């Protein structure tokens, strides 16, 4: 193995010192000269006609600079389906619908102005249950759409499920459900928009997709009659992402519109309650799952259908079935697969991407069902998984090419660390679940690329401009470590700039755990170009062919004769300050050779796939229904650990988010209204809930990954819930099929079981 100096090292996050000293700027901390503050008035009804909006009183309030309603703004459409508008006209479809926006000289005045706006509504019957919303006579959320069922064809059938069902020796069939949970980024959402004199826009915004947001805002400007303008997206330090910032939102457009109307910078920042009710959630699901195996335990088929509550508008939540297809077709070897999902409009909040993007929901159903199949067929749950484990070289029914696969190792490791199931202590049990996730990009758009620019100064230091978005996960370190490694520099020599579309190249966004793989390869490509130029220059100076040169310790040297060497800064200055001088810069755009899914949803969407197995030992108190996790093991095949501290941080953070998903977190909706928009009633885990977590990793050195790495941003929270549900079953013999697994649900299940037994 190569002797690496930067890659694979536990190098602290490069912005950690600034964060530890309170010096980084989040959107909350940015103030521009003359800045106004915007606030949004939301609907009082889940579904209602807007009869009238009277802003006259609010307009008279001293300090108010602009008030906008739906009538005052052009037709800006946004969202995946373009079914959303920054301010609603005609009717509101959910409690989070924006009906008016105010800009004032301070937030308090803006808030007061909201209370002076009088909106007259005429209530309409609402629809809150997606299955009811599918009925013919259900009230329509979008009349022009004619039905509440979205016209998204999530439907595939590979092999022949009906025949397989006839041949199957054992089969299980069950319904599972998951509910709304939300990202709970500690830094709330916010944006500041500012126009220059010629109507070019600069917007500071919390986003995971600077380049795509730029495109969205450009179309908004077009709708506002501002053609051929420039949009600059500046991304301040982000207080957590987890998928919440993969779309553009009403508040961003409202800051733009208010800034345009007032000719002043306008800042809109959410309070916590607003963050809970006006940002999007993870997609809730109802999942019917059947799978079967032959008498040797080989999976024969999987047959899954789902109904997803889309809420009132369409963001990325509606496309989560495309990612659910991944575990459905490709977690374990399963030759015959059928899947259908329907997204349905309701008057609930609308959902978005959230860490795992549908995979946690689907894996909860599949892996719970795997344990049920194991019980029915008499196989040990781990044995059943081993029989069907994916292997390197496999091509899955969806045409995913499995290049490297450490699933077997992960299964063995987790089993070893958690011990065999017996002998049993009362109320204690162990459970397992595995995962597959994209680890080498995911071609959702035409491009899955990321650009990098490297600029070297006269002293051998680097400015690295990357399209990648850091939101705390460590994208900045990852590219810096890779470039430092490649060029024999210190990580501290690499200054990473990742925050500004005016200076950074394009990137499709921080989603699909793609940044390490794609931005890493992009940075590596740029570094290689720089290296080739340096070798070229040095070869003349050292009178040695480039092939025998290496870079290390900020030097370029002859490999076999390290005394023949040059300090890099010196070399650069020599070339800079000479006749026809030149400076060293390189750019590289990396777009992986993965494929878009075809009409049949087949296609190798990612260059490589990340695998993992999680296991939990739990203790269930049969009196209270409380589940205690005694030990948790999360093993992953990550290709290569670029930075073990950050890698462990992703796994720990993911697992704890997954445990919350499994046991405590839920947004409680009552007829479309969110009843628990605060940290008191929405139960995110605290430090007291930390469980002993072990996070072993297997390095399979993927041939296409930068230094062999695969993505690991999302997997930590993918198989957590089924591992815990399976452990609960092992402990007390009750199967919980709905998330979260609250003590009440456990108690109800225990009671039902006792009734059945007596």
């Amino acid at each position, binding site marked *: 193995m190569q002797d690496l100096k930067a890659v694979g090292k536990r190098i602290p996050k490069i912005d950690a010192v600034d964060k*530890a000293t*309170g010096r980084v700027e989040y959107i909350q901390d940015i103030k521009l000269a003359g800045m106004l503050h915007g606030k949004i008035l939301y609907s009082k009804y889940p579904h209602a006609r807007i009869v009238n909006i009277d802003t006259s009183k609010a307009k008279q309030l001293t300090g108010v600079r602009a008030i906008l309603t739906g009538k005052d703004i052009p037709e800006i459409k946004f969202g995946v389906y373009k079914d959303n508008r920054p301010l609603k006209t005609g009717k509101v479809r959910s409690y989070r619908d924006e009906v008016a926006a105010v800009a004032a000289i301070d937030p308090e005045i803006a808030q007061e102005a909201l209370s002076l706006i009088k909106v007259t509504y005429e209530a309409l019957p609402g629809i809150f249950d997606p299955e009811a919303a599918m009925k013919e006579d259900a009230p329509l959320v979008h009349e022009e759409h004619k039905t509440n069922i979205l016209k998204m064809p999530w439907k595939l059938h590979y092999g022949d499920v009906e025949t397989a069902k006839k041949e199957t020796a054992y089969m299980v069939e069950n319904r599972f459900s998951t509910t709304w949970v939300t990202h709970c980024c500690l830094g709330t959402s916010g944006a500041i928009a500012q126009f220059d004199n010629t109507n070019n826009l600069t917007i500071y915004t919390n986003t995971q997709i600077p380049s795509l947001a730029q495109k969205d805002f450009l179309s908004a400007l077009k709708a506002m009659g501002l053609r051929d303008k420039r949009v600059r997206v500046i991304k301040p330090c982000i207080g957590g992402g987890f998928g919440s910032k993969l779309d553009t939102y009403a508040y961003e457009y409202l800051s733009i519109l208010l800034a345009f109307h007032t000719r002043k910078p306008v800042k809109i920042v959410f309070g916590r309650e607003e963050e809970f009710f006006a940002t999007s959630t993870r997609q809730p699901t109802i999942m019917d799952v059947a799978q079967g195996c032959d008498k040797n335990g080989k999976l024969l088929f999987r047959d899954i259908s789902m109904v997803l509550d889309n809420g009132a508008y369409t963001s990325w939540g509606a496309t989560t079935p495309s990612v659910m297809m991944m575990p459905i077709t490709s977690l374990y070897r399963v030759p015959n697969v059928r899947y259908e999902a329907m997204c349905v409009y309701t008057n609930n909040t609308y959902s978005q991407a959230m860490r795992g993007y549908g995979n946690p929901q689907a894996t909860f159903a599949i892996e719970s069902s795997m344990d049920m199949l194991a019980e029915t067929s008499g196989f040990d749950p781990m044995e059943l998984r081993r029989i069907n484990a994916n292997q390197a070289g496999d091509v899955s029914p969806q045409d995913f090419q499995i290049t490297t696969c450490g699933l077997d190792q992960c299964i063995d490791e987790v089993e070893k660390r958690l011990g065999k199931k017996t002998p049993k202590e009362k109320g204690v049990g162990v459970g397992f679940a595995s995962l597959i996730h994209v680890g080498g990009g995911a071609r959702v758009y035409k491009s899955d690329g990321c650009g990098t620019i490297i600029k070297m100064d006269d002293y051998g230091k680097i400015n690295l401009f990357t399209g990648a978005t850091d939101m705390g996960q460590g994208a900045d370190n990852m590219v810096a470590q890779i470039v430092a490694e490649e060029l024999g520099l210190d990580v501290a020599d690499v200054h990473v700039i990742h925050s500004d579309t005016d200076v950074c190249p394009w990137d499709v966004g921080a989603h699909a755990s793609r940044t390490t793989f794609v931005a890493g390869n992009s940075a590596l490509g740029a570094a290689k170009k720089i290296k080739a130029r340096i070798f070229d220059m040095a070869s003349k100076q050292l009178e040695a062919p480039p092939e025998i040169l290496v870079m290390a310790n900020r030097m370029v040297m002859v490999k076999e004769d390290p005394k023949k060497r040059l300090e890099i800064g010196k070399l650069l200055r020599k070339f800079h300050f000479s006749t026809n001088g030149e400076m060293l810069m390189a750019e590289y755009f990396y777009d992986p050779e993965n494929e878009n899914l075809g009409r049949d949803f087949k296609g190798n969407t990612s260059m490589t796939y990340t695998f993992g197995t999680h296991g939990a030992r739990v203790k269930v108190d049969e009196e209270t229904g409380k589940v205690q996790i005694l030990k948790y093991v999360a093993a992953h095949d990550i290709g290569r650990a670029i930075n073990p501290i950050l890698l462990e941080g992703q796994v720990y953070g993911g697992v704890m*988010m997954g445990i919350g998903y499994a046991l405590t977190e839920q947004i409680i909706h009552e007829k479309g209204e969110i009843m628990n928009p605060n940290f008191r009633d929405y139960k995110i885990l605290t430090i*007291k809930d930390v469980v002993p977590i072990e996070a072993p990793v297997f390095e399979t050195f993927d041939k296409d990954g930068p230094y062999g790495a695969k993505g690991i941003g999302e997997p930590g929270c993918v198989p957590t819930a089924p591992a815990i549900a399976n452990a609960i079953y092992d402990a007390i013999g009750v199967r919980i099929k709905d998330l979260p697994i609250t003590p009440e649900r456990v108690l109800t299940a225990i009671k039902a079981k006792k009734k059945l037994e007596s």
Partner: protein
Amino acid sequence: MGKMISFALNGNKMAVEVKDHWTLLHLLREELGLLGTKEGCGSGECGACTVIVDGMAVNSCLFPGLEIAEKDVVTIEGLTSPDGTLHPLQKSFVENGGIQCGYCTPGMIMSAKALLDESPNATEEEIKHSLAGNICRCTGYVQIIDSIKSISEGGVEEVHVVAWKNKEKDE
């Protein structure tokens, strides 16, 4: 209505006019421009706004501004020594992966400091107890506990604010 009060902020004596309804968080962020203290909820539920008043960790979003009269207030900005040397807790959070997005970090560090000032050898249980009001969505807390434990178990490292010394000199 406002009132003139004096207090010590990170070791420096201050006299400021404070309005009745201002929280300490508002005073620090909006009036004094100390942006290191964060607001995560504004209602005492997340701990992002934690600062230390007379040795006690408090949620500055709930703490009335007027109540700091004649008291010592320490914020995240007060932990680093003038030459840039990090407080041991800051260093430990940096080195042990206790920081991802960093939004919870100032509050976490201030809560941890209040704890270690009080009981320098705090156990894991005590750490969990003292930081129960500080929410972090990124780290899963594991490396935050490591960061604090590596100091509390060291036991010997003196945990104090270097800027604090200026104040003693002043007096």
